[in-house]
């Protein structure tokens, strides 16, 4: 078994899934880095050091990707060999209208901050995010990668908007 050829789910010994147990992931990161971090090889040969650097970097990369819902879904698509051109158009008219609506909302909030509007929109989008994640899970169960990919755009959009609104709320 070559560590660097395992996919990240295998590396962390986690079943491929849209959901992830964050504390399990954290725990596995610690176990892995405790054994492969370059600090454990400071008096090692150059070869050992190089190998440790590679493996440790790979573990950190995996941690980053598995720990982020968007990157994780992208990665699941990738290991299932589903590739799609980024510029492919989305023909979900409802979602397009929603995008226009939220863009306008954010623009108007930038001009005039209204706390209750921010709170309402936040809970609104969070609900949509939850539904989208559920849809992605269902699509993955049915191995409907095209659906997953379509929902991924929504996922990115909702997360960006949530971050934007939270930034405004903190101002």
């Amino acid at each position, binding site marked *: 078994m070559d560590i660097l050829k395992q996919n990240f789910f295998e590396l962390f010994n986690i079943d491929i899934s849209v959901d992830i147990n964050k504390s399990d992931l954290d725990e*596995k990161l610690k*176990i892995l880095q405790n*054994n492969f971090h370059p600090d454990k*090889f*400071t008096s090692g*040969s*150059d070869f050992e050091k190089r*190998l440790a650097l590679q493996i440790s970097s790979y573990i*950190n990369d995996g941690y980053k990707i598995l720990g982020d819902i968007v990157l994780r879904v992208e990665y699941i698509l990738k290991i299932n060999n589903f590739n799609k051109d980024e510029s492919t158009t989305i023909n979900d008219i409802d979602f397009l209208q929603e995008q226009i609506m939220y863009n306008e909302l954010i623009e108007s909030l930038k001009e005039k901050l209204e706390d209750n509007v921010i709170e309402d929109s936040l809970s609104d989008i969070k609900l949509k995010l939850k539904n989208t994640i559920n849809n992605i899970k269902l699509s993955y169960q049915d191995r409907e990668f095209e659906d997953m990919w379509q929902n991924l755009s929504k996922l990115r959009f909702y997360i960006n908007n949530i971050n934007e609104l939270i930034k405004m709320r903190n101002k």
Partner: protein
Amino acid sequence: MSLLQISDPTITNENLKKFVVGIDLGTTNSLIASYDLNLRIYQENSSKLIPSVVGIQKDDNILVGNNACLQSDSDTTIIRSIKRIMGLSYEDINKLDHQENFPVVRAQNDLPCIAVNDKEYSAIDISSKILSHLKQLAESMENKTLDGAVITVPAYFNDIQRQATKNAAKLSGINVLRLLNEPTAAALAYGLESNETGSFVIYDFGGGTFDVSVLNLDKGIFKVLSTDGNTRLGGDDIDNAISIWLSNNYSFMKKYSYSEIKEYAKSIKESIANEESISIKVNENPVTLSQDQFQDIIAPILNETFEIVKNAITASGLSPSEIKNIILVGGSTRINCIKNLLEKKFSCSVLNNIDPDIVVAHGAAIQASLLSGNNKDNILLLDVLPLSLGIETYGGLAEKVILRNTPIPIKLRKTFTTFKDGQSKLLINVIQGERELVDDCNSLGSFILSDIPSMVAGGPRIDVDFQIDADGILSVSATETTTGNTSRIEVKPSYGLSESDITQMINDSNESAEIDMNLRRLNESIVEGKRVVYALEQALNNDGKDLLSNEEYQSIIDKLDILKSSISGDNSDLIEHGIREVEKQSEFYVERRMNSSIKSLIAGKGIDDIL
């Protein structure tokens, strides 16, 4: 060879123990300490703090530390606060708000140098003088040669500044085990002693700089969640604020020079600690300051630090209520009200039971001990990239490749292509910083990819790997994937020294100080040889028979025997050759060991088994 560290990190044999230290290379003062069950600080003239001051006399003789400070004659050029210009370009220095009080000239490669007696000294040169001084101090007190050191750097130091610090150490003959972020070192000092779990803020308020880090400590792993700071905010600003107050409120102050007023300001700062109010006499004139007034005067400065703490907490993804403790570091945290204000503002308890001046060196010494394998505590420090790394794209925009606060080491691959038919070269400008425009970030250097095979525009696919190591230092490699050719990379630093400049400098310095070099090399190679033999034999006993065929096993034993017999001789070339041969012969074994260890680590185990 650290094969043994997978199974047994303990070095039981005293002779194989390495002499390693932690160095806090500070802007104003430096410290050097070792940690072997107890902390030992190497003092100069019974003072733990060694001034980061270099004096250059008329005959080019160099004085460092307290000796340099004692020189008041005009024949000696005194250089202070060299850390402020480490890794900066000549232009950067001219852009600084406060000009340092040494004559900086523009030398080769846009490198800023200090000209003294017709000689030019770079910041790396001066810094290496301080490091050499510290090294000699520790070596003479232990009567041992130094095997390695952990050197601390501010968390916000960029790649060039880190590289410069490492080069200064190389120049002074110090083997750098790791560069460690200062706040992280402080946490290590506290974490190990109190065995805490939770999230912590490190509030490091020094003489001239302010740093914050948010860290997570859990079961021996230290994770840096975020860092922030201001390189121009420190105790000095507090002295200035009090000085201004003195000048504005007492007209007789006009008689005094600014530096004299500042001395009074300093003594007021130091004596007001717990007092309701204090009165001092300045040449028969009474000066009175109440605690409330004092706090009002320094409020703008403290509020700025609190704002930075708030930003760092936000960046860490935690809410203030999730912070367990704030740890105080740096001499300026002796101002009592800081503790109370922090406790009130962030409603958590503040730790200050380790001397804030030595806590960083303390942590660095612990880390050195851990890295050398002397210490069997299974502690690992997981650090993060302090500043985002990016590349310049069309229109002078910065495209982030690796975001700040990503755990390191990390490797990222970017694919590039050509935009002209037959294009054979590609220039990539690598930058570090958080801003949108390249001009607002630091350029780390330009990488020229050459020998790109001749193809139509957009044909070649060049994979460029950005590898950040555990010190936060970048290296770049590139491969053209359609032909499999490795593109050649020329690294042109934006300014400063290339690798070959450093090698030249080290060679130059060695020529001037060639003492017992051969004997020292022999001793080092014997110790190293013994370590290799010990480590490999332990490993082979453990799993050699399982992982190796009889032939493979024997081939390693053969090389080991050659090494063993060379160790009893006095030819260091032979021993070093023997070590290399053994290491080469056991490469596949090392790889198999790593690959097989992962199975036993987490494969087939549920989370319950691991905990």
